[in-house]
Each structure stands twice: as structure tokens, then as C-alpha cells.
């Protein structure tokens, strides 16, 4: 049975890159880093440009500007009309879009392989020559307000996650939502957008990932033609975000919303991220998430809460170490009908306590390792996914070597490593426990 709850989609998953495919890496003189992933099975190419700029790089008081600006990148340049880039992609049967996270903003097109040069021309153009009309900016502000309404304000789980993050981070900007707080979004405008553009959009703050039916030498030539002439920025701000002080108090929050059909508990802990050349602990935490909550049937939480007892209808664990700064390790328990959140939390804590005593079942660890190895094979089926893995990693400061080492680092994790990671991460004082409850309609 697949997880019933949408929140499950953000949990778990090893999300592994693979190194069976040929990967080539180089850079232009202006600082643009380029990664080429070859996949010659279909005459298709994905171009992605990743800017090392995200929510956490925004000026104080302007939450949401990185995402708003992502929308504005589709609004035309000196020579390309608003919407024309997307229209050209569509005219070739392709798809394009963009996304923003805490640490990066990425733009992509998936097109027939012979269109790569044209895509580079257009992407390079909007890196330097954006031309925003006040009318387009005003209309697009309405679009992102609708987007927040649709994705967050209409969804109590999304509102709950915002509250959890805000409670998790005492000082670091990861506590703010990528889409922005509504009252700050309403104050965004063209001047703020243009300031953000001038500060962050430059070839030496970007990574170009090209994946598909391409020859690396030809990619290099095309990139030189289109991106080569762009001047690097000499005023790139360093990525120094306010860091977390010691967290000394476990936090608890309760949110009630009439639209909640299924109450649940989430707990998050501050957790270290993957670092260049130093991914061992993050690998152990990744395996810990799999052991505790990776499989809906055989994980520690599923067995204890859904099989040995009928406390929960769903449980899971999640961790993604691809981040610039310390991230989170999360647990979720959705109680069965008639089970209170208090009883579900008690059962969760007892299960964790027992796990800390008994340790990792060697058969569980072996099974997860088997899947880690197989994931490398399966991952090769989707060049677009590989492009995302490399792009995200490089955008947070990891290297191609780190990405390629990652499966081996995971494979080397021992049962002792997993328990050491559990002791390092599952610290109550660094945690937030949230209850999402329903309430009667007024």
C-alpha cells in the first residue's frame, strides 16, 4: 500500500546519483562551471542552469524574493519578449520550468538534442539582459500570491511545516519559507527584484548541467559561444548566513485547523549536512533514516507502530543532506483511528529508545545496502534526475567527485556508524515536536 499522505512524498528516499554514465566537468574563464552527463538512448537533452542563490541568501525582510525573481526570469530581455523563451521551447516540443529552494534557484529546458545551442543562447541572454516592465512585475506578484494561496495557505500540512521550520531554526534563515511570508511577499517590487538580480546572477555564481544525447566537446564549444562572453561579477556576496547558537531547549508546538482530516505528529532534529570531501556522517544519517522509516513495511518504525502494534496508519523518516548549512532529520507518525497524538508520541519515543538499546538489525542494514547498489543502476534510467542530483550538489558546494563517491560512502556505513549518527542527531534539546490537530469548524 502506498502512503496515503502527501507529506510522505517529502520523506525518505535514498535519491542516489549514479556513476555508470560518463560525466565530464570543466569551467569557462568567466567562472561558469559545467557538468555534462551523457545518455545517448534518446535524441533529447536537458539544460539546467543552477544559481548558488536561494531563499537563505535573501536580504532580511524580503522573504520570497528569490522565488519571485525566478518567476520574473520568464518576463523577457532586451531582445526576447516576455514569454517568448517558453514559447520557443514549446515550439520544439520541449518543456521548461524553474524552481527555488533554500540554497539554489534552477532553470531547465528539456528539448530535442539539436536545440541545445538555441537554449544556451536564450539562457545566457537572461542571465545578463533581463528587461522587466512594471506591468509584468505587478501581474506576476499576483501570480506568486496565488501560488502561496494554493500551495501553502490552502494546505494545513504546508502551514504546519512552516511553523515547524520556524521553530527549528533560532537564527539561521532556513527557518523562513522559500515562497516567503505573505506580508513580506506583498511588499516585493521591481526595484528589489533588480537589486537581487544584480547581486546574484552572474556566470561565476552558476553551474550549467547538460544531460542527454550530447558530446562534451560540442557542449564546451557551444557554451563558449553563448556563455563565454558574459562578464563575471566581482561583487558576489560570500555565502555567510547567520548560524545557529547552541540549541538548549526542546520545542513543542500544536496547531489546529478545521481543514485537518487526519491529525499527526512530526518531529524534526537539527542534523549536519553533506560537506565536500567529508560525507561520512551524512551517509550514516541517510542510512539511519532508511533503517528507521524508509520502508513502509520493514522499517523499525513501521514494524513497531503498524505491525507489532496498530498505533499508526503511516510512519516515516526523512533526511536530505544536500544543503549548505545544517539541515533537519524528520520523523512522522500518523496515528490509527482512535489513537491519541499523546499515545502515538509515547509509542514513537519508546520505539526510538528501544532502537538505541538494540541497535541496527544486520539483515536490515544488508537489505538497505542492496538497494543502495541497485539504486545506482535504476538512477541511470532518468538523465533528468541525474542532472538534478549533480546540479543540486554542486550548487551547495559539493563536487562531482563527492557525488560520484556518495554510493561508496553509503556502502561503507557500518552498524556502529548508524548508531553513532543516531546518538549525534536524536538529541531532544535540538528537536521540535509538532502536533497537527483538527478542530471543529466555527
Amino acid at each position, binding site marked *: *500500500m*502506498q502512503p*496515503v*499522505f502527501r507529506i510522505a512524498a517529502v520523506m525518505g528516499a535514498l535519491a542516489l546519483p549514479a556513476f555508470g554514465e560518463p560525466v565530464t566537468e570543466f569551467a569557462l574563464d568567466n567562472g561558469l562551471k559545467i557538468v555534462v552527463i551523457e545518455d545517448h*538512448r*534518446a*535524441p*533529447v537533452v536537458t539544460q539546467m542552469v543552477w544559481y548558488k542563490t536561494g531563499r537563505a541568501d535573501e536580504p532580511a525582510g524580503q522573504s520570497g524574493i528569490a522565488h519571485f525573481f525566478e518567476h520574473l526570469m520568464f518576463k523577457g530581455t532586451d531582445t526576447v519578449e516576455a*514569454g517568448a523563451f*517558453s*514559447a520557443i521551447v*514549446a*515550439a*520544439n*516540443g*520541449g*518543456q*521548461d520550468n524553474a524552481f527555488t529552494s533554500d540554497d539554489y534557484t534552477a532553470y531547465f529546458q528539456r*528539448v*530535442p538534442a539539436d536545440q541545445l545551442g538555441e537554449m544556451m543562447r536564450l539562457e545566457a541572454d537572461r542571465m545578463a539582459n533581463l528587461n522587466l516592465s512594471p506591468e509584468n512585475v*505587478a*501581474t*506576476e*506578484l*499576483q*501570480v506568486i*500570491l*496565488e*501560488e502561496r*494561496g*494554493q*500551495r501553502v*495557505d*490552502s494546505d494545513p500540512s504546508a502551514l504546519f511545516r512552516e511553523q515547524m521550520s520556524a521553530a527549528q531554526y533560532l537564527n539561521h534563515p532556513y527557518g523562513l519559507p522559500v515562497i516567503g511570508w505573505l506580508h513580506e511577499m506583498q511588499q516585493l517590487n521591481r526595484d528589489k527584484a533588480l537589486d537581487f538580480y544584480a547581486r546574484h546572477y552572474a556566470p561565476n555564481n552558476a553551474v550549467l548541467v547538460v544531460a542527454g544525447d550530447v558530446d562534451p566537446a560540442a557542449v564546451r564549444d557551444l557554451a563558449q559561444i553563448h556563455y563565454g562572453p558574459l562578464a563575471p561579477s566581482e561583487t558576489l556576496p560570500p555565502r555567510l548566513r547567520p548560524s545557529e547558537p547552541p540549541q538548549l531547549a526542546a520545542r513543542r508546538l500544536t496547531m489546529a485547523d*478545521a*481543514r*485537518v*482530516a*487526519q491529525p499527526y505528529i512530526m518531529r524534526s532534529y537539527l542534523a549536519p549536512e553533506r560537506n565536500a570531501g567529508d560525507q561520512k556522517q551524512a551517509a550514516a544519517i541517510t542510512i539511519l533514516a532508511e533503517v528507521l522509516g524508509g520502508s513502509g513495511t*520493514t522499517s523499525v518504525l513501521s514494524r513497531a507502530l*503498524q*505491525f507489532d502494534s*496498530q498505533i499508526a*496508519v*503511516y510512519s516515516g523518516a526523512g533526511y536530505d543532506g544536500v544543503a549548505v548549512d545544517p539541515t533537519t532529520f524528520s520523523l512522522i507518525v*500518523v496515528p*490509527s*483511528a482512535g489513537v491519541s497524538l499523546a499515545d502515538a508520541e509515547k509509542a514513537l519515543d519508546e520505539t526510538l529508545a528501544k532502537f538505541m538499546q538494540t541497535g541496527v538489525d544486520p539483515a536490515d542494514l544488508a*537489505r538497505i545496502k*542492496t*538497494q543502495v547498489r*541497485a*539504486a545506482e*543502476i*535504476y538512477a*541511470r*534510467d*532518468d538523465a*533528468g534526475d541525474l542532472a538534478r542530483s549533480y546540479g543540486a550538489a554542486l550548487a551547495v558546494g559539493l563536487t562531482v567527485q563527492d557525488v560520484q563517491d556518495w554510493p561508496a560512502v553509503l556502502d561503507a556505513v557500518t552498524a556502529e556508524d548508524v548508531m553513532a549518527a543516531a546518538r549525534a542527531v536524536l538529541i531532544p534539546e535540538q528537536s521540535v515536536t509538532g502536533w497537527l490537530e483538527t478542530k471543529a*469548524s466555527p
Partner: protein
Amino acid sequence: MIRALFITLALLAASPLRAEVSITEVTSPNGIKAWLLEDHTIPFTALNIRFQGGTSLDRAGKRGAVNLMTALIEEGAGDLDAQGFAKARDDLAASFSFRSDADGITVSARFLTENRTQALALLAQALTAPRFDQDAIDRVRGQVLAGIEADAKDPSAIAARLSNAAIYGTHPYGSDDAGTAESVKALTRQDILTAFADAIATDRMVIGAAGDMTAADLGAALDGLLGGLPKTGAPLPAKASPNFQGGITVQDFPGPQSTVLFSQSGMNVNDPDFMAASLVNEIFGGGRFTARLMTELRDKRGLTYGVGTGLASMAYGESMDGSFQASNEKVAEAVDVLRAEWAKLATGDITQAELDAAKTYMVGAYPLRWDGNGAIASILVGMQINGFAIDYPKTRNDLVRALTLDDVNRVARRLLQPDQLQITVVGQPNPTPK
């Protein structure tokens, strides 16, 4: 039918092709047929098996039986209980998924070449000897009930339920195929066994495979995998008699936005005008940022984050559907724009430039959908269900290119029925849309 809209579109729009695509029809020694696209680049295979009928085969008073049964197939088979089955599958690093919808049950499997024999033997166990243990039934029933409860407070699910009930009445398309809390609570193990016998049989089976397997390997494997299934199941469902009466329904629901769902009659995939209708839909509310509704509602007016339409050509009925969300104070204006665009297109006002852009999109998108073994296996199943020839990939783009402006405007006039446009709003729109 709105719930399944996007699944159906994926099957229909799935239009191969790799430059030298060559699909093989494979027949096993005992006569089981499958379509295969061999590709030995990566050492795994994706296999897709569809049993037609699906949740529309629920017996009277047993709504939700096929849905619950499908969710239970992986919960233990042969001498393995749910834990044992999951461990065996994960030890092989295989993945199996079992999903039901109103037109069928889809089994999607992915397995490595290095242990293919064991993986297929395990899948065969699940398909031919599922245990349906009482403890598994009760556990998964709890998950299904939680989902039903969640849907009761999900504005999109509420809108789909209201709209489907109004259009399809007592046909299975008219009700939620997960069932109601009451019907699901009443299901017994015998009901699950009956649903399995009704829905899983070789007389309604369609198979697609892609990846690291030769025709000979696949042919030899099919009998072992599926030979143990019964030959016949329950009679397939009857055609629906949809009633698109037009008008607007508003259902109160708290929140800053309303969910708007709209629907009118559609077109069968085998209708000679279907390709032209697909172009009309693409121009109007298709996947491009440049489609008319996206331009009018989002780009020009900032009324919504996104809007789209689709042609749902289901096995037992057709519709043209779409949806968007908008702030409560903007819904009335957005509905006005939607109605105006609907009426405008119904006059057949597509321009040559719009047609040319949509055609190049549809032609160019063709090879791009050919995206990985899993997607291809699913496309091969969709082609067979639609009754397409095995060389359809070679002719499909010519069908698109041959359509003229007269063709698409004639079909726009035939397809678009402003009087039928049935709009369901879930939220607290103010002012009230008309």
C-alpha cells in the same frame, strides 16, 4: 471523469519515439502476448501489466472492494507474510506496485537483470497466490479509511466527488472508487477474494515491457509469471451515460482560495476527430505556458497560479475537464474569463499561428516522451488499450501534420459546448461566480 484525467492523458499523449524505435510483439508458448521495446543499455527491465475493468467492477454494495484488494496484493503471498514478502522483494532490489483506477488495475514492476528469475517468481507469487491475511486486511483498511477521511476535507477531492456524482449518477464513474467509510468497514475477506476473482484474469490483460530483456526471454517468462491466472473474470463494466447539464455549483469550504473544476462532454480516442481535438485542447488549456487559458488567467490577469484542461477518454465514457484554484475574491472574475474563452473557442476562432505552434509542439514532444524504461512500458500498454497499431509511432506525427486550420476549427465547434459547461466551486468565493 475527473479523478483519472491525468492518468488517461499520460496514456494517450504518450507518443513515442526513439529515432529507431522498434516494438516487438512477443507471444509466449501458451499464447500470452506482450509488446516489448528492447534496450540493453542499463541492466534492468520495466514491466507493466494492466487488467482492464478495475474499480468499476465493484459489486453492488461493495464499493471499495477492488481498491482495497489491489492494495493488499503486496501484503503477503504463498508462504510469505507481508513482512516476509517485502523483505524478499527488497533483498532482490526489485520494486512492484499495484494500483487501481476506474478503468483497470496496473501492475508496474522493475527488476535487475542479475536476479530477474527470482524477481519474476516472487511477482508471480503475488499475482497468483496472494494471501489476503485478515491482519493485513485490517491494517490496510485502516490506511484506506484514513485516505477517505482526508479526501472528505480535501477541496479537490470534494469537487471531483460532487462533479462526478452530478455527471455520472449511479455508474461507477459517479462515485469514489475507494468507497465510503461505511462500505469499506463492511468489506469481508470473502469480498476481497471475490474482487480478486472478478478483476484479475487473462481475458482482460495487456502487457508492455522495456529494457534489458530479449523477446525470447520475455516470451519464456510470461507463462511462468501469468500462466497461473484464471482465464476469465467478471463481465467488463457498461458504458456510462453522462449528463453534462451545465450550470455552477458552489460548496462552502474554509480557506483563502476556491478550487474550481469544470467539465463537459469529450471525445473517444478512436473518433477520427480525436487528434484534431487534442490539438484544440493543446491550444486552449494544454501543457504549455502559452496555452490560451494560461495566458488569459495567469499571464494577463494574475488570477491563478495555473490552469489547464484535458481530454479524458476513459474506457466507459469521455469528458473534457479542467481545473484551477484562485483567491476567493478573484473566482468570479476567473469564471467569467473561463466562460468567455469557452464561448469564443466554440465559434472556431483558432488562428494559423496558434495551430502552427501547437503542431510543432505536439510533433516535437513526440520523441521526448520516450523517457526511460518505466515510461516506455506504460506507453506500450496504453497503445494496446487504445487499439493502436504496433507501428503507430511511425505514423503518428504525420497525422498531426496533416491537420488543417479548417479541420481544427470544425472540431473546435464540434467539441466545445458552452451550454454543457458544468462548473463546481469548492471554497468561499465572494462575489459568487455565475
